[in-house]
Structures are given as C-alpha cells and as structure tokens.
C-alpha cells in the first residue's frame, strides 16, 4: 500500500512507452511532430528573406500580409470543410447509411461544396470584421479583382478537399492527417507571404504548377504596382479547372477502389 503513495518508476516507464508508441502509430501525430515544423521553417524563412529585401519595404506591408493571410485561410478552410464533413460522418459511422440511399457520387460532392460555401462565408466575414477592427484592414483595396482571386482560391481548396476525401474513403481514418495537413504541405510553394523570386529553383518548379502561387503573385502586383496580370489570372483559372476535374476523377477512382477493397462498407 505504501508503494502506491509514491511515484512509481515502473508505471512512469510503462506510460511513457505507451505515449511514445501511440504517437509513433498515429501518422497525423507523427506528421505534426516532424513535418509541420519543417513546413513552418520554410514558410517563415522565405517570408523573412523576402521582407529583408529593400524592394519589399512598402507601406502596404500590413495590407499584403493580412490580405494574404485571409485569402490563404479561405483555401485551407475550403479544403478542410469538405474533408472534415466527410470525416464527421465516418466518425459517427453514418456514412454507410448515406451510401445506401439513392445518393450519387456527384451529388455527394456538390452538397459538400455548397455546404462549404455557407461555412466559408461565415469564416470570411469574421476574419474581415476583426481585421478591420484591429488593423483597419480594408479588403476593398483589391476592388473588383478580389472576386476572381476569391473564386480561384475556393476552387483550389475544393480540389484539395476532394482529394483528401478520396484518401479517407479508401484508407479510412488512418488518413485523417491528410485533412489537416494537405493545404499546409503546399503552402511553402504557394508564395502566400513572399514573392516566387525568393524560392530556390526546385521549389519554383512546384510553385509554377500551383494556381495559388499565381493568385498571390497577382495580389501583390495589384497592391504594390496597381497592376493586374490577366495572364496570371487566366493561368491560375485554367490550372484550377484542370485540377478540379482531376480531383473529381481521383475521388471516383478512390470510391470505386474502396468499394472493391471493402473499406467503403467499413467506414
């Protein structure tokens, strides 16, 4: 009895081992432990490199950073709202019930997208309200061009969300880390807070393939040079349409694969 009153080396050792084992078997935790800080290092490293350049010194710095932050959050939330909704049904063990209704795959995707718009409208309104209250940030500086930027980021977020959902359908909740991390994985290449010119060549190649990089480059051009690059806007839109089609095809492929592997019935 006396021994129970004191910390036990055996119990601490066992529980420590248990916590380490749980972390090692949990991919999302492993990702957060290892990869997330590396991604953060890239983002803030490149941002610092960009900001110390003389040409980056601008009175528009606050607008640029806040604008980028708000718009990038739209991409993240658009992605997460789609895959989180699906995960919620998987957590509840309700997805199987939905699957045996007359629902079609396309109807699931369209409903996920529409519901994400409603939720994103709320997120966007709150962000704008607080940015305006605390930092006098005015989104209207982007004028009419906010709309195509906004639409492009949403579409890309949806594509990512659809891809993440495909992974969850096929591999179940062991792939939940994709939901939390997919958008962050591409953030260093999306040039959210810095210009593409700051990136090393290998990173530049990836960023050329991402519509988000053209949007943020375009946004900086509007604020710093009052000049809109329509070419970048068209390019990002074309890439977005291509990726959205690919994401939908990927979802259908994963859905069918999950049906074959039996995972669709399990989630």
């Amino acid at each position, binding site marked *: 009895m006396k021994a129970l009153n004191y910390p036990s080396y055996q119990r601490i050792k066992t529980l420590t081992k248990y916590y380490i084992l749980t972390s090692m078997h949990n991919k999302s935790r492993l990702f957060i432990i290892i990869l997330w800080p590396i991604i953060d290092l890239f983002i803030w490293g490149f941002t610092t490199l960009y900001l110390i350049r003389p040409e980056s010194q601008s009175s528009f710095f606050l607008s640029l950073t806040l604008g980028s932050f708000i718009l990038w959050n739209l991409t993240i939330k658009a992605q997460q709202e789609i895959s989180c909704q699906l995960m*919620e*049904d998987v*957590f*509840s*063990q*309700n997805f*199987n*019930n*939905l*699957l*045996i*209704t*007359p*629902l*079609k795959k396309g109807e699931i995707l369209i409903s996920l997208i529409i519901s994400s718009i409603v939720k994103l409208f709320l997120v966007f309104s709150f962000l704008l309200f607080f940015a305006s209250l605390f930092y006098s940030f005015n989104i209207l500086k982007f004028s009419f061009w906010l709309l195509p930027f906004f639409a492009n980021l949403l579409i890309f977020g949806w594509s990512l969300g659809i891809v993440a959902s495909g992974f969850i359908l096929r591999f179940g909740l062991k792939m939940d880390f994709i939901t939390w991390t997919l958008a962050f994985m591409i953030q260093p290449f999306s040039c959210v807070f810095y210009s593409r010119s700051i990136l090393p060549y290998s990173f530049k190649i990836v960023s050329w393939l991402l519509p988000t990089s053209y949007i943020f480059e375009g946004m900086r051009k509007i604020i710093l040079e009052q000049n809109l690059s329509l070419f970048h806007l068209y390019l990002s839109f074309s890439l977005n349409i291509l990726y959205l089609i690919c994401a939908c095809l990927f979802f259908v492929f994963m859905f*069918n694969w999950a*049906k*074959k*592997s*039996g995972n*669709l*019935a399990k989630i």
Partner: protein
Amino acid sequence: MKKPIIEIQNLTKRFKNKTVFNNINLKVYSGEIFGLLGPNGSGKTTLIQALLGTIKPSKGTIKIFDKNLEKSLSWIHSKINSASAYSNLQKQLTIMENLLTFAGLYGIENPKQKINQLIKFFDLKNYVNQKTKVINLSSGENTRLLLCKALINDPKILFLDEPTASLDPNIARKVQNLILKVHKQRSLTIFYTSHNLAEIKRLCTRIAFLKKGKIIKIGPTTALKKLAKLY
C-alpha cells in the same frame, strides 16, 4: 413458380489472398424473413454489404427486384433500406434532424408526419420532444432509431445486420418483437443476419447457415435441426 425478390448467383468475394465467401447461390422470396446465420467472421456482414452495393463482389451477380444491382443501384436503393449494429446516425444531430435528412434523401412527402408515426411506433417520442442528440441515446434507443430510419422510405426489402448485437437480452427481445410487428403490418421482405441461433429461429421463416464463406445448410427454420452443432 414464385420469382425471387433477391437472387444471388455464384457470388464470390476475395480481399487480396483471403476469400471471404465463395460461390454463393441464394434466393430470397417476397414477404419472408430470411435469416443468414453464422459465427463471427463467417462473411455475413460482407455478404449483406455486397447486397447493399457498398462492396463490389469479385465474381457473380446480384439481382434485386429482378434488376442487376450494379446497373440499377440508385433505383434499388430507393426501394430498400437497412439497419446495422455497426452503424449509427449522425451523433451531433437530434433524432428529428437525422430523420428529416434521410426523409429528404429518399424524397418522402410529408416527412414530419411520416417521422411522427415512426417515432411513436418505436417509442422515441419523448426524445424527439426533448430535442435529444443521437450521441446521448442508449444502445437500445439507438437501435430503435436506426429501425425508424430503415423504415422511412417504406422499403420493400429491409436488410438487418445483427441489429441486436450490442443489446442486452431484454432489450434485444423488445427489438425482435418490433421487427416481427413491422413485418406483419407491412408484409416486408427482411434479410436478417445474426450469430444468435435462438434469435434467428424466433424471427426467420428460412435460414441459410454460412460458415467460412460457404453456405452449408439452407431451408425452412422448422426443417433445420441441430443447427447448433454446425458452429
């Protein structure tokens, strides 16, 4: 000759190197409660999921209402429904919100009226009035709610996958009584899986015994003697 409402021909399902069931042939007729009996891991849930179209068989065909399941999936889904011990409704929503969602997906007219009839039948009215969320329901209440969901579209065939598996014997018996009552009232066809011999004997008109992915006995409940020895 009576036409089967469900017809399974040479159905096989393999996952990588494991054969879950092999060359299954089965006919279920309108109005019967067909029991699929078998020990845990015998392939009952995989077979019922194949019948629901959420698992693609490796070989063979499934016909429901004389239509190929794969080709007419949406149409067949509008005429069938299911409840399983391994599923739940959305836990964050209330009973009414969940049932209204499913009523919408099946395109039910006057959904509230329909839902009120069902929750009265399954004795869930108090929970609906209190706006109870699904997460706060007990296993027995949850099973009754799943049965409400399963009857919302007035299905012609009801697939029940071990619906009483997580219930204590008293509650399980109450649920069985409700199933028998529903069957009598609506002259439904029910495809029922269970590992519980007594339950299957009590409910079903015909039984197939599934073991290691093969049907080793099939026939009317009364004709199948010494089923317990097959386990």
